[in-house]
């Protein structure tokens, strides 16, 4: 139950945060006032409007068009299959894991569980390859920090979308590592019941961290690509926000 509540809060918060970021950076009305209450009202109105617009535009063909437009299809053969396996396994893991954890009291079982275990192995392998070959793209060179109260200012802290993306990437990798570890250890004759119970919870929260990181990364990545493709304030993908 606790995990369900935490999951809803975390993922809901991440979704709303990403939407707010987009609203803040693309909508003129967000800068028309300095009153936070007014901004929030406009944000909610915009969110409602976008929800309606998206629901009208969203359809299987539109989604299919969107998927076909993803850049990974244009990658080299091996790289393409790597991404297909990576994204596919992750999506199945997240979908099966969270669905059963939140909606099915018994938890994950049966064929979905077998699929979850298999997809987990595939995901772990793909993650390692992605980090090995793409990890260096996500090493930033921040300025050396200086101890100062000005660090409390987000702009001076250097919290930019690009950096959040980097952190999200490495959080995703860390969570993937912990997921792999917490899946592996219970299979070995090492942990007693208490350890098993801890690992089970640890696996779930690692998965939540992984999903959060992926969501933030994907949200920022997609938004960034849409900004380059569409004028500010224009409409993007059928599911984009």
């Amino acid at each position, binding site marked *: 139950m606790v995990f369900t509540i935490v999951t809803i809060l975390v993922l809901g918060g991440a979704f709303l945060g990403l939407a707010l970021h987009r609203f803040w950076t693309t909508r003129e009305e967000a800068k028309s006032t300095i009153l936070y209450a007014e901004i929030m009202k406009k944000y909610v109105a915009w969110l409602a409007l976008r929800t309606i617009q998206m629901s009208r535009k969203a359809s299987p063909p539109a989604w299919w068009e969107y998927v076909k437009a993803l850049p990974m299809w244009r990658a080299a053969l091996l790289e393409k299959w790597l991404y297909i396996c990576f994204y596919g396994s992750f999506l199945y893991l997240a979908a099966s894991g969270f669905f059963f954890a939140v909606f099915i009291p018994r938890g994950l079982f049966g064929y979905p569980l077998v699929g979850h275990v298999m997809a987990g192995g595939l995901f*772990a392998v793909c993650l390692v390859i992605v980090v090995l070959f793409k990890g260096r793209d996500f090493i930033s060179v921040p300025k*050396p920090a200086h101890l100062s109260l000005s660090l409390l200012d987000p702009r001076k802290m250097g919290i930019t979308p690009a950096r959040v993306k980097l952190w999200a990437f490495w959080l995703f990798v860390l969570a993937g590592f912990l997921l792999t570890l917490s899946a*592996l250890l219970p299979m*070995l004759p090492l942990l*007693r*019941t208490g350890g098993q119970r801890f690992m089970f919870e640890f696996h779930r929260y690692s998965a939540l961290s992984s999903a959060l990181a992926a969501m933030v990364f994907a949200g920022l990545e997609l938004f960034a690509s849409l900004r380059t493709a569409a004028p500010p304030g224009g409409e993007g993908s059928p599911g984009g926000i």
Partner: protein
Amino acid sequence: MSRAGRTSLRALGGALLAVLLFAATAPGQTAAPVAAQSPKHLVWDGNRTIPVHLIPLRDENDELIVPTETDPWPYSARFTCGPCHDYATIGSGWHFGAMTAANNGRPGEPWIWSDTKTGTVLPLSYRAWPGSYAPEALGLTTWDFTLLFGRHMPGGGPAEPSDEEVLAHPEARWSVSGKAEVNCLACHNRSARQDPSEWAKQVLRENLRWAATAAGGVGEVGGMASRLKETWDITDGPNIDDHLWAVAPSVKYRTVDFDSKHRYFFDLNYQPADDRCLACHSVSPKDEVQWNADADVHAAAGLKCADCHRNDLGHAMVRGYEREAAETGNRSAESFTCRGCHLGENAAGEKTVVPGRLGAPYPKHTGIPLVHFKRLACTVCHSGPKPKDGFTRVRTSRANRLGIYGVATWSTDLPAVFEPVYKKDDRHRITPHRLVWPAFWAKRAGKTLTPLLPEVVEAAAGDILEPEERISLTLVALSQVMAEDEVPVLVSGKSVFAPNVDGGIDATEEAGAAADRPAFWGIRKGTDILQLVGDFDPAAEDKDPAVETRIQEFLQALGTVAVRPGEPAILVRKTLYRFVGGYLDISEAPAELAGAAGPGWLADGKLLPLVPEFDVRTVAAKAGTEQTLTEEQVGLVLEALAETSGDAEVVYVSGGRMFRRAKDGSLISDDHAAAAPVTWPLAHNVRPAQQSLGWKGCTDCHSGGSNFFFSQLKATGPLLTKKVDKLSAASFMGLGGLFQRAFGLSFIVRPVFKVVLAICALVAGALVFLAGLVALGRVAGFLDQR
């Protein structure tokens, strides 16, 4: 004399006896049990010793028993033990209160009425347990129930019915036998004289009120109430008309155990010894040899049954299942479940119980995924025999009449009980069960089957169910004139049938014999089997004169068969031998007997076989099997029952199927809920940890062909047929066999999978660590400064 008259006489006699005893003995020894309700006896004073039980024995009239007096009565637990231990409170306990219990509790082993002749295997219980029938609903009185199962009952309950129940069934013989009171000694007697076999014999002799005295070794009981007229009463004393057959029960007390004040020394235990429990609760694999049998791991560690299965004066035994505390309100019962004692957890998994009572170790369960603790009872991995193909057939004390020893063999192979059958309990947790397939004749009304009592079936079936008896009678008759080394036999195909000491027939297989060999009566001499009357030429002048002497003996012997359709005769070629007027009559066979040969019954000018062809066919079909009915017999009995059942359809249940008779006489089998196996959870024997499932790894259960999921159980029943249910272990669990097979197969690659995961975790961890170092270094400015 009327019952009222006898009662008055008994009262008068009792009063007189009391006065005499009062005059003869000290008041303190014969005082009325004034302390019966004294609360001081109900409260333990804290001392951990057991009081010496040197106490006066009292009979069912609450009179002091003087062992040396003439014809003393048996002692009564109600009046001997009752003064200090409230009898009514004890009588409501688990072992005695099934008829009046408000709470049925988790299903246990039902009483199984097994009657081989009618092919009945009927689970009965006064508790409303699934699959069990209420005895009273079938028309069984407490008297019937006591005679059927009293051999393994501890007295009380049905064996001690209320006076209203006794009056309601005057056909019962309670007034002769008395009631079997709660037999305290059955459990609490520490003496090695306590004899469950003696109890069983006394119950079968209908010596119910004497049974505890005899079984406890308190006195020697002779006589048989079952042979007495229904008008006999214990106050009548010995049967002066018959000293050989209808001898009235009597007690001869072991005077050596009495002191000079007529007090008897009971060697008692507060906690019963395991032997006392196991007398009625033993379960052993059918073909296991005694020296190879292991005890429960708790017993091996020095615990007694009663260490966990505790009770207070109310004798509401702690049974040890997880719902028990909630059902009974006895919170301390939580301490005596597996989880309570070993993990300190209650039924909800909360750590509310003090663990480790009696030194229970805390289990490591290293590497066992959590789901096992949610979905499986502890007993799945730890109790009963390990799963094997075909399951393990066991025999239980109560179902198979174990533990009763004497000249006769009491134990039976039937009913067939199997374990461990893993199925979900009412908490949807997989739990090991024992299983028995019911078999019975029943009237069918819609979807409801009402079982018929064996006696009803037997009456309707007539001689359809008696081919063995007829063959046996013939063989027994012939055996009267056999030499010491000769045994009369009936031969059919490969099977050779010989009489046994129980009045039945035993079948053996003759090696090398043709399966289609025609049936004949013969004599087994050593390993040879000869024709009863070999072929010879009766007209030959040099024939052996002993042959005709032998023929005369056979004819004389066959003449003693009680029920015969004609006079015995033996036809050899064209010569007919008969026994007429005490002499052998040899005559030429009439023309209508042409083609006949051998021994038979001469009736209406025909030579009938000694037993009908149906009998030979039936016993030959069943030879070497456990089954007691053929499809032909079932069809005939169904036809016979239909004639006496009016409009109701009669069916027979066996082997997990329901059989009914089609219009053309053939048997049709259908599914029916009443044919489903009856199961009850098992808890013992608990195996040592090293023998538990999972000790050798996941593949103990999760493999492509594991016995845990994929062993097959073929239904058994008294009917010899191929139409029986066959169920897989997974189907009992309500799990998909295909999934379990696929899941099991996945464990073939699991070691590789673990290695891959380990490598991935290692590499990913190393990269994260490196990235972390880089990030930390850059944040701190080290790298930038360098």
